């Protein structure tokens, strides 16, 4: 049985450009559409909905062990998280690139 080879054909370059445009639009659009909004987290809104549905519910039965003391610290830790991920991704591609070169030379 022969399967079509289409899954791994190169996607045309226009597709890359189009997708880049779509991502940028999706990121910018919210500021245009909902320019008044504060862009609070959806979980904050979710928690508010919990309170409105079950006003008697006490969510403080368990507290976070530790909370970032300020928004700045929180951003820093989120940046750290993204940095760790970025390093892992970058290391892989860098490693592969170096490997390719070594193979070619030898």
């Amino acid at each position: 049985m022969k399967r079509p080879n289409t899954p791994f054909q190169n996607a045309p370059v226009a597709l890359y450009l189009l997708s880049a445009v779509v991502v940028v639009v999706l990121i910018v659009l919210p500021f245009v559409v909902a320019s008044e909004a504060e862009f609070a987290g959806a979980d904050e809104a979710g928690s508010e909905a919990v309170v409105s549905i079950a006003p008697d519910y006490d969510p403080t039965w368990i507290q976070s062990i530790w909370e970032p003391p300020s928004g700045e610290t929180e951003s820093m830790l989120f940046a750290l998280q993204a940095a760790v991920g970025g390093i892992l991704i970058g290391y892989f591609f860098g490693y592969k690139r170096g490997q390719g070169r070594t193979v070619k030379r030898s």
Partner: protein
Amino acid sequence: MFRFRVRPVQLFYLILAILLLGASTAWAAPQRMHIMEGFLPLPWAAFWWVVAIPFWILGFRRVRQIVTARPELRLLLGLAGGFIFVLSALKLPSVTGSSSHPTGTGLGTVLFGPFVVTILSTIALIFQALLLAHGGISTLGANVVSMGVAGPLLAAGIWHLLRYRTSAWLSVFLTAMIADLFTYVVTATQLALAFPDPLSGIVGSWLKFITIFAVTQVPLAISEGILAALVFNLLRTSAEVEFQELGLIRSVVR
């Protein structure tokens, strides 16, 4: 036939630029996602922990199997985890006026299957619960089930359905997008089950939560799908060996 060739490096810069753009807009107002600490009553929190446990066991077995039997795949495993780390740190604004973040689980599912992603998501969720007070330890079970089990399992189904029927980028795009969206559908369901609306019941509160979580998530899911497809395409050229081992390429045509 003329075909313009994009070098992997150029593409990588493109992705980096997009991620940075997303990061700079999102960090203007740092926010959170997932079910927050304490926002599930104890019985439900315990229930979701119990649901998550078998998947942790399956996931650990799978990860150990990969790391010991095929150590050359460790780097790629790191990349899949890194992708989840980066994407779940990017809190992007959405059209509903609130912010949320993508999950990054789709790519890992395509590469390693759903159970490995359970472990990778758990690591990211623990990091966020302990260091960022984002999500929580009591709600870890529920968040793992939505992000690391339900999303990836559905994604794996979609991927196996699509992979030989349409082009690679489209399959990856749809897989990642659906994994992302479904995660928040499950989150909404978990909250609705725990907090049925006094008047309209579970359905009523489900509709309320789905509007908050899933609708916010639609544009982000599309972005995530695109990013996953881009990274997958990059990997196809730079990780041929790994792809062959994972059965993603049948035979490499040179």
